[in-house]
């Protein structure tokens, strides 16, 4: 299954604004995307509650995975979001 591993860049971590932006972007993808921290249990990336419960802070390494048509494009788009500071601006 295609995967992307990326380090959370946002200052507040995957919380507040960054979490909202990420979850909304994941919900727009045509393929379901999952996210996990390290070897943890993958959770749906379109669930704000699941994403918040990951407790991912700035510098945390997370892995995205997806399977199906458009998986690579979806993963690229979401990984790009996480590698930017979404608190800025």
């Amino acid at each position, binding site marked *: 299954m295609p995967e992307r591993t990326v380090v959370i860049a946002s200052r*507040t*971590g995957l*919380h*507040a*604004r960054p*979490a*909202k932006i990420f*979850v*909304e972007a994941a919900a727009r993808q045509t393929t379901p995307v999952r996210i996990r921290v390290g070897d943890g249990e993958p*959770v*749906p990336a*379109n*669930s*704000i*509650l*699941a994403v*918040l*419960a*990951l*407790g991912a*802070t700035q510098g945390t390494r997370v892995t995205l995975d997806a399977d199906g048509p458009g998986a690579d494009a979806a993963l690229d788009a979401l990984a790009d979001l996480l590698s930017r500071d979404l608190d800025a601006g």
Partner: protein
Amino acid sequence: MSERRTLRGLGVSPGSTAGPVRRMAGLIRLPDPTVVPPDDRAAELEKAEHALRETSDTLTALAAKAAEPTAREILEAQSLIAADPGLRDSVEENTGAGMDAAHAIAAACAHHRRALLAAGGYFAERAADLDDIGNRAVAAALGLPMPGVPDPGHPFVLVAEDLSPADTATLDPEAVLALVTEKGGPTSHTAILARARGLPAVVACPGAAMLDDGEAVAVDGALGEIRTGVGQDEAAAIRQRAARERDRLRASGGPGRTADGHPVKLLLNIGSAADLESGFSAEGVGLFRTEFLFLDRREAPGLDEQIAAYEAVFRALPGGRVIVRTLDAGTDKPLPFLNLPEEINPALGIRGLRVDRLRPGVLDTQLDAIVAAARSTGVRPWVMAPMVTTAAEAAAFARKAGARGITDVGAMVEVPAAALQASRLLAELGFLSIGTNDLSQYTCAADRQHGDLADLLDPWQPALLRLVAECAAAGERAGKPVGVCGEAAADPLLAVVLVGLGVTSLSMSAPSIPAVRESLARHTLEECRAAAGAALEAGDPAEARRSARSGSD
């Protein structure tokens, strides 16, 4: 409805107004659970889904109307949570097991709430959002009106049992005339917000439970009175008079002084540079709370980030004068990065300067950042520590700050021991600033947030005034300034008493300054002293107010 009654509570934010009551629904009580027969479970799920959708839509609509960006973001995030597929899945699991819609929602929210609490730190703060969302969705599933701040489409007096931070974030200052709560105390969230926005407010008013929706009332936030049975013409006249009074006060300016010219510095309590944009005239900042920078953080903010935040405040200062208070946090106001052990009695535990005993690096970095910001802006900040208790602690803090070149070092007086030893503290320090909110809490042994003990937290308690007098007298003997930066300073009559006791500066939120300036200008120093003497001799707060009023006339 036309019956005239007077209800009494604690006036916590001055100003008068009148208008119709709108009540805020409190926590929804769940009916006894029922076991749904298998054939009806799909319909129950549909009902629950509908309730969550309605909640999400309501929150989105509220977000679109929110005036402040912070409030908008809170509401948008809540709307997203209400629409969460994971929450929906939990609800489906519960209805599948035979729960009715309302219980299925409540149980699903409780489940996810635990998951967030387990994530810890600032993720755990979102747990409160789930309470709010759950309450709304349960109401929708039961066919009850949606809880939260009402929106009747005309100005109203908001009456509630108590207000949560999320409620207050959504208050529209154009629509809400005044706040009246059954619970809460003078230092509760409601009181602080009302003063910051200049809204009249009465808290700890148990009689407010009897007020009906639509009933016209007059609110006096200085006296803490609510009058019922007010006619439309009378209400309009009260509002007009209040608007004229507000305009007049807003136009006032100039340094604080008594009628005979005795100067009393009128200063601002601020949390960040944004609080300096109110447009009210002041002579500087008497209390810069530095906590804002540390909230919501898993790791302590670095030196550079702190320097930038302090520079922003120093550059925007009125009068170039600022008193910076070092981090006031601890087990009562926990910060994730401090990682302090839990305590049974946090108000009496590791808080304020005491944090330095366990996590010494935090204060050192903060002092370094203050010094760097002072150097780059040319401002000479005064620096004080919260929760100083003994002369030895004062001396240690003075050494730490002095070694970095800070020349004006002081302490907050919040602990009775510090007030009783004020002279000894002033032998080590350049100034004192009395935090009346905490000093009340510790003097009368009454929790600041305890609604049933609000009378003990009344800043007119003669025992509290005696401790203030002790500090002010010590300041006069040493020739060093002693200010008051608690909310007591914002009470125009109490300000007269404080000045009479010998206090040299009063620091408060911006909208309170004009009324205090005006009150001082009406009294000579001799009259202030007479009012102070009368208040000190009083047996209780009510008598202290009465005798101060007649003493100062």
